């Protein structure tokens, strides 16, 4: 009797696991941490250190010394913002059935546009950075929109087009930024302070961290995503296109313009990430030496977040947490690579869901067979 009920409980868990996407993500994250913990133990370090580092990132408490410093929370959010935005970029495209692997390029385009307006725009408070952000959004929308048009008009795979445009964006950014008078091989002169996203309020809250007004822009973006995808006509037609392009076309939805719009909005999200990094974390324009990698991490963020607005926000915070825990872990003699391993595992486990589903089907059959035999 007890064996029977335990079986059904197990089945219930498996059933839940495969039916709720949100739950899968939670379970997968826990699994990732579990394996990470074991790995830390295996290499002979104290897994507790990892969790104390994470606690410090999340709450600011340094458990070893009993000191509280809100700056860690601020830094965590600073790292999370571009991850969330690039995640939203990927997620928005994914909801329309597109694979936007070009968030990195769109991020670079946005960053570059913001830098130019920061250097050459009118140094009027607020208006200056608003213009810079708008320029970034426009640049990202164009960069993404090009891919959309190529796909809609000429059936060019968005995967290929975005990867290629990543390189175009990267090298154009370097080339153009180095043309700025006073720029050397790695930086431009300082921005006027009117261009910066610095927020004295947020800084004072977080004990002088780099946390800036980008926070509000990120929050707005999550809200925008949530409202547009879920509750507007545009979102309805994009979701229909993403889930069944042919049925959408039969229903009179203009699939091609949908693809272009979706790619433009997707590009704008990533470009906003670029603008926030350029104007929030730096005081000068950068000549990029390599790719910042937010765009590519955004793919994983969206995957764990199930391409929903709030899921992506949460998973962006998770990835941001792991990233900003790295230096703290190192100071506790724990290899910082563990966090990358956890991130990787989470993605792998998410992809294993199909496998779990197969397992479930097999079990159901076994049970049915046993039920028949005993009859």
């Amino acid at each position: 009797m007890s064996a029977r009920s335990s079986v059904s409980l197990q089945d219930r868990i498996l059933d839940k696991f495969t039916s709720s996407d949100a739950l899968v993500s939670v379970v997968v994250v826990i699994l990732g941490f579990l394996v990470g913990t074991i790995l830390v133990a295996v290499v002979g370090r104290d897994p507790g250190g990892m969790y104390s580092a994470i606690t410090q990132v999340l709450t600011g408490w340094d458990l070893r010394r009993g000191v509280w410093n809100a700056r860690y929370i601020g830094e965590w959010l600073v790292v999370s913002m571009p991850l969330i935005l690039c995640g939203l970029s990927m997620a928005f495209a994914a909801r329309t059935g597109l694979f936007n692997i070009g968030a990195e390029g769109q991020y670079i385009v946005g960053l570059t546009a913001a830098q130019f307006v920061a250097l050459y725009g009118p140094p009027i408070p607020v208006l200056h950075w608003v213009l810079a952000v708008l320029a970034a959004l426009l640049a990202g929308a164009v960069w993404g929109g090009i891919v959309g048009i190529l796909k809609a008009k000429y059936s060019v795979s968005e995967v290929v087009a975005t990867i290629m445009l990543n390189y175009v964006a990267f090298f154009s950014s370097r080339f153009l930024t180095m043309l700025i008078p006073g720029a050397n091989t790695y930086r431009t002169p300082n921005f006027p302070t009117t261009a910066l996203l610095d927020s004295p309020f947020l800084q004072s809250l977080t004990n002088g961290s780099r946390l800036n007004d980008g926070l509000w822009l990120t929050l707005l973006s999550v809200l925008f995503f949530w409202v547009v995808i879920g509750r507007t006509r545009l979102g309805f037609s994009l979701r229909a296109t993403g889930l069944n392009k042919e049925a959408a076309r039969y229903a009179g939805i203009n699939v091609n313009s949908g693809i272009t719009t979706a790619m433009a909005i997707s590009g704008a999200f990533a470009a906003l990430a670029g603008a926030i990094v350029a104007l929030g974390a730096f005081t000068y324009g950068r000549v990029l030496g390599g790719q910042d990698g937010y765009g590519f991490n955004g793919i994983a963020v969206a995957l764990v977040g199930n391409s929903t607005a709030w899921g992506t926000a949460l998973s962006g915070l998770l990835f941001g947490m792991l990233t900003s825990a790295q230096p703290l872990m190192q100071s506790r003699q724990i290899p910082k690579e563990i966090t990358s391993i956890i991130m990787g595992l989470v993605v792998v486990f998410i992809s294993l869901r199909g496998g779990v589903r197969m397992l479930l089907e097999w079990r159901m059959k076994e049970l049915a067979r046993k039920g028949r035999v005993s009859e």
Partner: protein
Amino acid sequence: MPVNAIEMIDITKIFPGVVANDRVRFEVLDGEIHALLGENGAGKSTLMSILFGLYESDSGTIKIRGKEVRIRSPNDATNLKIGMVHQHFKLVHNFTVTENIILGLEPRKGSGNVDLAGAEKRVAELSARYGLAVDPRDKIENITVGMQQRVEILKILYRDADILIFDEPTAVLTPQEIDELLEILRRLRSEGKTIVLITHKLREIKEVADRCTVLRRGKYIGTVQVANATESELAEMMVGRTVSFRIDKKPCQPGELVLKIDNLTVIGSKGVPSVRGLSLDVRAGEVVGVAGVDGNGQSELIAAIAGLLPVKSGTIYLKDKNVTSSKIRDRIQAGIGLVPEDRHKHGLVLDFRLDENLILKSFRKSPYSNRWGFLDFDATARHAEDLIAQFDIRAGSGPATPAKSMSGGNQQKAVIAREIDLSPDLLVVAQPTRGLDVGAIEYIHRRIIEERDKGRAVLLVSFELDEILNLCDRIAAVSKGSVVGVLTAEEADERKIGAMMAGVGAQRAGEQNNEEGGAHVR
């Protein structure tokens, strides 16, 4: 006492969530034609797939010629001399008949080269012996679907099969080709072959089968001597209740011209014209049927009317409006409703909820969204509740039911509800009852007639001749992308339309019918 060629005892096969076969028994005598009858989803194909080694059963035993066997793959089945003619042929189009037949079993000459000449000789012999009239050197792409089916038959005969399974073999054939196939089946039986015929068409069973086993919802219902059973008895066994196949309808009262297609040519997916100079018109208050074998331009015709495919030449008028090059959305607005052929691919967004699917064409309009572009979920759900009640859609969690969790019949009802709810002037209905059970078919047919009686123009495209004859007021037979002739319901019968579907004009079809009527001895 004759030996059982096939004995399947207590076969159970479970798919996630469905018991496809529930302790089914199936016995076929040596040298008989045995029909396996059941509705879609009754478990016929599953049972035969188990026999052919495509699936393994979860429990039960199989005996072939009295010996218990395990069939784990089609290769095992072939070794047991079991062959299957699938519904969708598995042929290489640019290979010849012989090349297709010997594929995977190529006879070698001493030099190691393929002995094509020898194989051709053997194929010709087999073809002659069973009266198949297949030329071993023809390329598959140049021969008709009926011929391709014979190649499939030859393929299994070449492998020495003496148990032949036919999976819905008549679905893709014209009435004439069906007659020829049934003749071939009789010939095969007289040569000592055992034949299993999977079908849901009662008339074919009455014509050729010796015995018939009926399945319903995965369960074994019974096996009967076909000679002792009437069609309606068989139907009752299949469905579980008495069914009427005829629908009562008032005489049609055609009104103004709604759809006028003039000399339409449409390029199909292969780059050649699929619709060639087709002309057709549909009036308000009548159902016009397009009868034809699959692949004679029907899909392209529908696509052109709906605006999914560009028109190469010719015109399409909806009432007085030329819509030949209008956008899809404008045509919907102008009053064209479409129930597409494939509800999963084209009719529904399966991952959407039912209520979202029901506003797929109208979500831009009030009350489903306001002028700022925001959706109104309450209005959407209320609309869905309305249609659920009105069209008797069975959906587990009401408007919130995911479309993919609904049964095929209810999915189709949802599509039809959505299209009728838009109250279009012209309702284009393609294959509306494919894969549905009898109950749903009756309902959908009734709804189509109701729309006609409300004064809508209905264009029905179907490969089921019964459906066309049942519903339509006028019938246009198409062949190779053009209309061969148009008959009224009174003039039409299966033979005439069949001849026209094969490309013979209306005039000649009548004559031919008379000749054949005299010559045909049953």
